[in-house]
């Protein structure tokens, strides 16, 4: 429960009113967050394609992600301009570290005040009451709450770094992260490449890894969790001027984890970001990043195996491949078992 909103029924009511404020969803009703998740895991913001893929995959998320990514892999790729913080409209921002955080807490549409009891009363034909964030990419502030731009808020990381006597581990140089479309991860990924791998990580794997990482940490607190709508620009092919081509909902989280800084207790800040409004993805990615920034393994896994474990298409494809015939290779192992010593 967030301290600043604990006592305010009015705020809770306002948060609830945002749920479903988007009106009739354009695609699969009641499945907006699932559609967001498919887009995030595919690394492609294409809600219509995701909804279509979910239908064609009969709801198998892994398969839907594959369909979207295979489709996108055949399209030409253009590098976007770096996303400008000033263009990011915040729809929700909470800090679990400080009640009074500079820039303020913005509850937005929170899933936390809705009942977890299954509602049998909803009419079949009405769209299900779903948590549709602030109601679609193009609708950043439906309730007119005057939520700020990202630049107006500052970041918790800066706050901690500025505080006297608080050691914060130097973040690893982000490096010039390759687009995973262009380059493989390599044996020593930059932090940006790590972020790219986590951002499109498989949700269940991210959450599982974050949990085993948390079990081995002393401290991990969500410094801030933000949901907003980012504008994406590409350079115009003739003039070179940035042209806005998309508005993408994003979730980002900063997790303050424990770390040893200059021989004393301090913090390592982990960052997690994901397309769409599945906040859990950003939080889990931030926990994994904080753990790696602290120089610790993620539940016993070094960085590369950990990143490999969240590569959903690779992991599900490999598990699925077990149903392919293995007659020749299995016979080889069977021979080992049946003739252990061998004719020497």
């Amino acid at each position: 429960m967030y301290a600043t909103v604990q006592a305010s029924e009015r705020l809770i009511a306002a948060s609830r009113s945002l749920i479903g404020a988007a009106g009739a969803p354009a695609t699969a009703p009641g499945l907006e967050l699932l559609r967001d998740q498919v887009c995030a895991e595919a690394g492609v913001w294409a809600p219509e394609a995701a909804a279509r893929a979910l239908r064609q995959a009969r709801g198998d998320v892994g398969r839907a992600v594959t369909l979207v990514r295979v489709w996108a892999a055949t399209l030409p790729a253009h590098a976007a301009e770096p996303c400008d913080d000033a263009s990011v409209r915040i729809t929700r921002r909470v800090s679990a570290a400080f009640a009074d955080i500079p820039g303020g807490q913005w509850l937005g549409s929170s899933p936390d005040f809705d009942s977890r009891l299954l509602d049998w009363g909803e009419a079949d034909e009405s769209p299900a009451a779903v948590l549709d964030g602030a109601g679609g990419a193009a609708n950043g502030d439906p309730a007119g709450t005057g939520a700020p731009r990202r630049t107006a808020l500052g970041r918790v990381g800066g706050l901690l770094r500025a505080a006297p006597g608080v050691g914060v581990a130097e973040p690893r140089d982000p490096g010039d992260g390759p687009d995973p479309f262009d380059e493989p991860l390599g044996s020593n990924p930059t932090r940006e490449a790590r972020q790219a791998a986590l951002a499109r990580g498989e949700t269940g794997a991210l959450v599982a890894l974050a949990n085993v990482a948390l079990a081995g940490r002393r401290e991990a607190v969500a410094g801030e969790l933000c949901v907003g709508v980012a504008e994406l620009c590409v350079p115009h092919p003739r003039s070179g001027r940035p042209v806005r081509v998309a508005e993408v909902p994003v979730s980002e989280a900063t997790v303050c984890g424990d770390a040893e800084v200059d021989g004393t207790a301090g913090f390592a800040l982990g960052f997690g970001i994901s397309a769409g409004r599945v906040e859990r993805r950003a939080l889990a990615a931030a926990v994994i990043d904080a753990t790696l920034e602290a120089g610790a393994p993620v539940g016993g896994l070094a960085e590369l195996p950990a990143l490999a474990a969240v590569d959903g298409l690779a992991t599900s494809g490999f598990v699925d491949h077990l149903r392919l015939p293995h007659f020749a290779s299995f016979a080889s192992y069977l021979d080992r078992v049946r003739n252990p010593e061998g004719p020497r």
Partner: protein
Amino acid sequence: MRPPTVAELAARHARSAPYAYLDERSKREVRRAILKALCIPGRQVPFASREMPIARGWGSGGLQVTLSCVGPGDVVKVIDQGDDGSFNAAAMRELIGSSADARTTTRTAEATLIQSRHRIPELPLRADQLLILQLPHPEPLRRVVSDPRRAARLHEAGDYTAAWLDLYDDEARHGAPRSGADHPVLVDRRALASPSPVPRHDVLRLSDRPHPILLGAGRLERIVAIPPHTDVRPLAFDDRPLRPEAFGGSCSRCGSETSYRVERELGGGRWECSDTDACAERRRGREAPT
């Protein structure tokens, strides 16, 4: 005849979909990795694996290598466990053939490109044929060195102590390595590599071949190459050579006693060649009047 230019190929192709499925940028990425891999035999060369219309772990790496090499004059054969009829092999053969406008075959001798999973074709291949293997685990040290970053450093130093110790442990405790298929090999006496999960029968047939072998790992984004006439030997102590699989009988179809055979049913006593074309070829040879 002069080989066709890219523009001529594109014009002849006359379709909006790229020739051989992959766009040219992706093919260039794969081809660069192939060339680099050929220059450093047995080494793992990273490449940006594309999402393919088959699942990762199902031959997506082999498929990308094949699609980056195939031309309209090629004849393509795809086998899984030695069998052309396996559904995954058939699906890839259809995709390659149709998208690259190339003829497909099940006859080893007719093929110019052979993509295979878990087997080396048994009929001898010529210098003008290219063998492409699907590679699930490119890192031969993965069982003894858990961190890929450390494994990469050990490869740089040529330090395979961990692999030798593992082998020694197996020899001391079991009297033989425990590996079934996928026994690690030393390529060009330098680089430890995974031959892909081919049986030991095939591991022993990898050395000094007249054609290149390209191994593609799509899931783990690596390409490994064995150039023609390269020395490839299994990791083994001098006095403990790698033993091929033993079989309980000759092939019930072609009668071969030297092929790699698989028992149809555990303990059933009916053994069959796993390389279906080699088996058929032997039967054809027997039936043909001499």
